[in-house]
């Protein structure tokens, strides 16, 4: 039987996340007890949620994360390698087979920055990839960037430069901080650099 008022997948995701108001949740539940089509959609949403959760635990995503995210990973027993170079500075770094996550804590004065981009550059400083408009908490003094651990494990000994930039009212780019990662390979593998993005 076809559902006349199907519940949107995003609303079902809210239901799964316990993010609906009480009356809305009651209405969704009553509908689900009368509609297998929406039940099937909820199962798809749950599969998506579980898939994302699994991917997040693999450390292979490039993304900006939060301290609470790192805390949760640590509570699960996952091993986090973290570097915190100062703005304008560099750090010697590596990853080992035992590492599950690779984090760079990028200190910067983010006050008033409405949009912040994170740029990934090669050793000459030439931009190879950009993460536009990254999420930055209000009042934050650093950006917590997760590098793909699978990419880092495949990376030969090399230098990588990360930049945080913002934009003034005229749209001109302004450097917030530049961070140099002098990576020493500690795992066997090919000697070529994998593509950044």
């Amino acid at each position, binding site marked *: 039987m076809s559902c006349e008022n199907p519940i949107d997948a995003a609303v079902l995701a809210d239901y799964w*996340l316990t993010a609906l108001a009480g009356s809305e949740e009651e209405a969704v539940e009553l509908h689900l*007890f009368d509609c297998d089509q929406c039940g099937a959609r909820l199962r798809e949403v749950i599969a*998506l949620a579980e898939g994302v959760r699994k991917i997040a635990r693999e450390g292979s995503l490039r993304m900006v994360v939060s301290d609470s995210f790192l805390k949760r990973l640590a509570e699960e027993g996952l091993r986090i390698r973290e570097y915190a170079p100062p703005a304008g500075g560099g750090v010697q770094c590596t990853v080992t087979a035992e590492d599950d996550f690779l984090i760079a804590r990028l200190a910067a004065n983010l006050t008033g920055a409405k949009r912040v981009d994170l740029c990934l550059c090669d050793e000459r400083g030439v931009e190879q990839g950009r993460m536009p408009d990254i999420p930055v908490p209000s009042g934050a003094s650093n950006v917590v960037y997760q590098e793909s651990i699978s990419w880092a494990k495949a990376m030969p000994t090399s230098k990588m430069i990360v930049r945080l930039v913002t934009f003034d009212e005229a749209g001109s780019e302004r450097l917030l901080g530049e961070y140099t990662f002098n990576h020493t390979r500690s795992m066997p593998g090919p000697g070529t650099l994998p593509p950044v993005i």
Partner: protein
Amino acid sequence: MDIELNDAELVLQIGSGNARDAEAELFRRMAPRVRLYGLRHLRDEQAAQDLAQQVLITTLEALRAGRLREPGKLASFVLGTCRMTVLDLRRNAQRKERLLEQFGADLPAPVQWSLPHLDHEQLTRCVQSLKERERSVVVMSFYDEQTSADVARLLGVSDANVRVIRHRAIHQLRECMGVAA
């Protein structure tokens, strides 16, 4: 059962007695719904399966005894039983064992719980292709199960904005995975 009965007809057949086909149909129809409810509220597949057994036992008891006064409201009755049973489960875990001992043998074999299979590599590409804020919101919501307010504070956006970002991201992920939005 050759002809699909509606809920009210199912209730009336079970209430009339000697209706094993109708009882099996009730189980087939309602068990997946109760398990979904259980998964959402108990966050555990085995607990959801146990809940389905208990709720269906309680429902069968009520229907056999003709205690459901409005047969058309079977879904509401089962949902209400789910709510009461989850509350009860949290209060008294022992009742589960007693009910299962008493009635468990009457129940059909449980249907294997399964979620749709997703291509892991494809989903990884889809998540990575989201915009930065969308990716952060989706991962923090699903991995960390943080509230919209928590995610909003961490990302420097409003609660309402988190919900909008999450909705957009879910639609994009489903589209990227080839599922109708």
